[in-house]
């Protein structure tokens, strides 16, 4: 067993964050009506899901190419969380959603979620294995982007939801969706992908907003508490940066 200062600080930070999260969750359970800052992209997600079902054209939901077993895990989990909240609505229509993934673990998880949605709707037989599709391995980003643009170019979908870990290949995906005049919502944890997204759609979920998917789409007390936790941590980081800047200014 090895103890280091940085590991101990990290563990302390995690423990304190957990305690704050548990406390805030209990607080929001007893006070359920909490107003969230309006994020246009999350309102648009719900509108698009409903519109795609009404129009008979399905949704294309891309979960990115981040693995659940690597550092991209949180972004992929956030994307899965959004899928979990939307898939029941999306599966209610005649046209099933198309979920694409660029990683094996993400693909298996998405298959399970979509199958679960059909089971919850009481029509497990309606689930088709092609609803979730593994497109290309994550270490071939351009192959992944080109494959998705091919899927989008078929014109079978009414909207394009792109949430998770992407890189510059997002330009190919967004361009294809733009050509098909699809409504797009893009959210990523990658700065290059965000820069690309800003140039094609107004509905961009920027950075930390991606991790708020569950709070906006589901609104459970624990999810809202986790948003509050993020705010507290952000204030602490900002104060620390200010103090460090002041100290370095004074000491030189």
């Amino acid at each position, binding site marked *: 067993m090895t103890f280091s200062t940085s590991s*101990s600080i990290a563990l302390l930070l995690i423990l304190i964050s957990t305690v704050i999260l548990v406390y805030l969750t209990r607080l929001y359970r007893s006070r359920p009506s909490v107003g969230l800052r309006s994020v246009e992209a999350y309102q648009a997600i719900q509108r698009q899901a409903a519109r795609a079902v009404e129009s008979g054209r399905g949704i294309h939901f891309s979960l990115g190419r981040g*693995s659940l077993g690597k550092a991209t895990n949180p972004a992929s989990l956030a994307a899965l969380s959004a899928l979990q909240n939307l898939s029941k609505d999306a599966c209610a229509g005649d046209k099933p959603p198309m979920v694409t993934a660029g990683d094996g673990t993400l693909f298996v998880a998405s298959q399970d979620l979509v199958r679960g949605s059909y089971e919850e709707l009481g029509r497990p037989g309606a689930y088709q294995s092609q609803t979730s599709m593994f497109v290309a391995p994550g270490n071939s980003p*351009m192959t992944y982007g080109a494959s998705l643009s091919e899927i989008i170019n078929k014109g079978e979908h009414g909207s394009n939801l792109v949430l998770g870990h992407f890189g510059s290949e997002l330009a190919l995906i967004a361009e294809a969706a733009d050509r098909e005049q699809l409504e797009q919502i893009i959210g990523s944890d990658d700065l290059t992908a965000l820069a690309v997204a800003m140039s094609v759609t107004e509905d961009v979920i920027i950075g*930390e907003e991606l991790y708020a998917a569950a709070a906006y789409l589901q609104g459970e007390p*624990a999810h809202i508490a986790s948003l509050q936790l993020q705010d507290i941590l952000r204030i602490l980081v900002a104060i620390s940066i200010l103090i460090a800047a002041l100290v370095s200014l004074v000491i030189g």
Partner: protein
Amino acid sequence: MNQIKRSLPLILAYVFGVLALIGLLFVPVIAKTLTGWAGFLAAIALLIGIINLLTVHSRRLVRGNVYSGVLVLSLSAVVLLGATDYIGLTTGGVSAVFKHVQAPLEAAVASMLAFFLLFSGVRIVQRRPNGWAILFIVAVIIFLLGRTPLPGLVGDAFVGLSDFLTDVFVSAGMRGILIGIALGAIAVSIRVLMGTDRPYNR
């Protein structure tokens, strides 16, 4: 029975999550073992994904899709090459395919990104001719001129201006977003450890 079916994944996720956390911070051998297991499971998941890809495209091939035919053929050829490499009939077959086919194709597609971004930039101005779009275009022009070999003082001025924008505004914005992403990742990880987020168990 139903209760056990629902609780078991949650308990397993919690136990292994805490073990991995302790392992990463204090006992590297536990972390190494668990990430090894995760790697093995990820490889199995990749195999399932490839089987799904092959199944979907085989169905499309039957319906007459030529591109799916190309995919099925290439996939089968690479698997066959892998097998012949393994038994010693060929040497470096799979790496040759990656070096001479996959890598150049990826590079060719990547080289087109600049054009996609340029068209996207033009479209953003056409679609949203507001203050932000104008700011975007002004920034693009300054950066382009800053990276162009212009003569004398004019060139130096644009290099200085573009460097100032990159070092101050772009860096500050990027760091702000990255700090937000890191904090969001911490919050999601704790939610998963607490069992609030369960993408593996509805």
